[in-house]
């Protein structure tokens, strides 16, 4: 499959990239930013997208890599999934992101696809948005009016839609460190290399044998990632006990609006959310093997 013809630009600074976006906007050209290309190139090959200009972010130094800010990490938007899954700083302070990145697609796609690309693409079945939401990540965006930051709660706005406007670039994501928290990303699929049918990102802090605080992000339970607020509330103060956790996770589908598709209808997804949430929380508190 051959994409429509387009012009290609490979800027080496963010300013140059912004100028290219602004120029295209002024002349009415349809422009697309190219990150890892693992979502954009497939849709261009299907001609579901046919930009007249493609601006490749791949040659701008400084858009990838991880910086330690003390109590948080700043992750460059162009950091590939493979690095997210294997980087020692991520594993030490925000292992939820390593766990989720390791479930994305397959090794070849993880070598090219990027953290920022996956977040801006915002596929409801994508694995990186729900962990970012559960962690209250901050999205650092730059555009014609200069840099701005958007909190996770306002970033995911709808089906494949985020706060990143045309003419803007997501440059990095800042996540607080979750030292001392347990975490797990539980993804339910039927075959290898599949998008999530439902997945749950869990962060749990245990204090004195009791769950003090829990944060749960749901993947593919609506057009955007969601927090499982009712379960989070029920888990606070809950004993680290399989039955108590299961009871709290029975609320995981409250407030969700999942789609029906060939992998399962909405009622099935609501059921799955409770099962997958329970598995995620059990694993996060170190009770794996308590399935059932």
């Amino acid at each position, binding site marked *: *499959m*051959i*994409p*429509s*013809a*387009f*012009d*290609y630009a*490979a800027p080496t600074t963010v300013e140059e990239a912004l100028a290219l976006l602004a120029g295209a906007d002024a002349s009415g050209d349809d422009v697309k930013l*190219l990150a890892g*290309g*693992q979502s954009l*190139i*497939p849709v*261009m*090959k299907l001609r579901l997208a046919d930009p*007249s200009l*493609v601006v*490749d972010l*791949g040659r701008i130094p400084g858009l990838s890599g991880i910086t330690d800010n003390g109590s948080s990490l700043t992750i460059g938007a162009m950091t590939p999934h*493979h690095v997210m899954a294997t980087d020692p700083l991520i594993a030490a302070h925000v292992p939820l992101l390593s766990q989720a990145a390791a479930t994305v*697609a*397959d*090794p*070849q*796609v993880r*070598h*090219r696809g990027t953290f920022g690309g996956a977040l801006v693409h915002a596929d409801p079945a994508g694995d990186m948005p729900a962990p970012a939401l559960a962690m209250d990540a901050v999205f650092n965006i730059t555009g014609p009016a200069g840099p701005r930051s958007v909190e996770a709660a306002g970033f995911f706005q709808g089906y494949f839609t985020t706060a990143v406007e045309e003419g803007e670039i997501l440059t990095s994501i800042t996540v607080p460190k979750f030292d001392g928290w347990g975490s797990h990303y539980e993804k*339910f699929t039927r075959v*290898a*290399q599949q998008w999530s049918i439902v997945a749950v990102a869990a962060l749990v802090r245990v204090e004195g044998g009791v769950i003090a605080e829990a944060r749960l992000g749901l993947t593919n339970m609506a057009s955007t990632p969601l927090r499982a607020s009712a379960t989070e509330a029920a888990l606070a103060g809950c004993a680290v006990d399989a039955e108590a956790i299961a009871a709290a996770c029975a609320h995981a589908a409250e407030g969700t609006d999942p789609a029906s598709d060939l992998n*399962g*209808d909405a*009622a*099935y997804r609501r*059921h*799955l959310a409770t*099962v997958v949430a329970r598995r995620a929380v059990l694993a996060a508190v170190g009770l794996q093997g308590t*399935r*059932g």
Partner: protein
Amino acid sequence: MASSTSISVEVDGVSYTDNVEPRLLLVQYLRERLGKTGTLIGCDTTNCGACTVHLDGVSVKSCTMFAVQADGHKVTTIEGMAQNGKLAPLQEAFHQCHALQCGFCTPGMIMQSASLLKENPHPTETEIREGLEGNLCRCTGYQNIVAAVKSVADGVEYGDSGVCVSESLTHEVAKELTDELTDDDSETAGVS
């Protein structure tokens, strides 16, 4: 209208400079411009892995990259794996272990296996299967492919009459999968 762009790429140790249309996929560049037809197109949708090559030593699906993105980089295809007329260990192992039938998936399988062994020189059987998650084989049932990769990781040296070591596989994965399926059946079966 769309222009063509000059690129310089090193492919299998040889430097090339060419004018390409930006929409030319890397796999098309390799096959149609350079005649490197050892890299195959299976699905053309980023699923099957038949088009896997290395970009600066790391596996990528060349049907999902533009040739312009490879400008200034090093590409290795299956045709660059043998050295001085001698098959690479993985190629020899696939041959000796009968890790192919029609052979369509083989170049991609070998390139991905090489990338996997570079990142994890001593993978378990499960890690090999997961590492080959993005490569589909419609013939072999994967068993001998996994055996071939495992034998290279284990340092098996194949002489002229190498032996297939597939019998030595532990089948740990088959067991894990059965356990998981039993578990999944009870609570993740459809409800409607």
